[in-house]
């Protein structure tokens, strides 16, 4: 069994995203077509995908911090929890590689997601694309002449987030097991 955060990603966040993807597909198949609705659905899906991945990363960070803090005595625990909560980038920032490193490296290791799984370099490229489009969608930035990403692109990006979520969960499992000298959760 993975972390509670990954379970929530798999059992709650992914089904929600799948429903949004189905809604996007339905709006694309409308006859007569409705380009505005199609575009708004795609923008919505981009933002939701980024938001859910950010939510997962923030959950995993919290879960890891609480498990770590639980190992010290009650009076010291609050200090550890306050330090882990303070200035957390994922509270406000996009879930890009830089922000993930800023937060997760507070556990005292170098987060090398690209090397954690052979599929990750391609997934990280997708994540970078997702975050770039997330900002365009959220701030109504200029859409390049080629237009918004396709639903197939978004489907691929969701699969990449899925892979990165599992990979990050695995990295934190190994790092916490090393730090705490015991399994943080049942793998």
């Amino acid at each position, binding site marked *: 069994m993975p972390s*509670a955060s990954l379970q929530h990603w798999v059992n709650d966040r992914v089904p929600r995203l799948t429903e949004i993807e189905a809604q996007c597909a339905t709006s694309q198949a409308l006859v007569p077509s409705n380009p505005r609705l199609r575009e708004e659905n795609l923008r919505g899906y981009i933002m939701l995908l980024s938001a859910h991945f950010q939510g997962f990363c923030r959950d995993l960070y*919290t*879960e890891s*911090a*609480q498990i770590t803090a639980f190992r010290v005595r009650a009076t010291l625990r*609050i200090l550890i929890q306050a330090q*882990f*909560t303070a200035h957390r980038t994922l509270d406000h920032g996009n879930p890009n590689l830089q922000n993930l490193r800023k937060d997760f490296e507070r556990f005292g290791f170098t987060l090398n997601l690209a090397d954690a799984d052979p599929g990750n370099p391609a997934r990280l490229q997708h994540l970078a694309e997702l975050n770039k489009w997330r900002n365009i969608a959220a701030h109504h930035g200029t859409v390049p002449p080629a237009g918004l990403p396709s639903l197939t692109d978004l489907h691929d990006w969701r699969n990449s987030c899925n892979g990165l979520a599992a990979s990050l969960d695995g990295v934190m499992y190994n790092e916490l097991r090393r730090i705490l000298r015991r399994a943080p959760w049942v793998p």
Partner: protein
Amino acid sequence: MAEKEQEKPTVLLNLGDRVKIRHSGGLRGRIVELRGPLGPGGVQVYRVRVRRKPEPKYIELMEDQLELVAAKG
């Protein structure tokens, strides 16, 4: 034997509740986010805002570290 009902996770505290933080030397705060069962063994975690100057401070704490403060009046 009757099948046991599946236990639902208990949320003891609610958004907006005023709480006292145990083992903190009397710190009090307000729950601003229910983070879910992210503590060891599925313990509920809450994001608590503590008044501080010049800016409030936020701490994520487990349910057994918090004590509900009864509303006045």
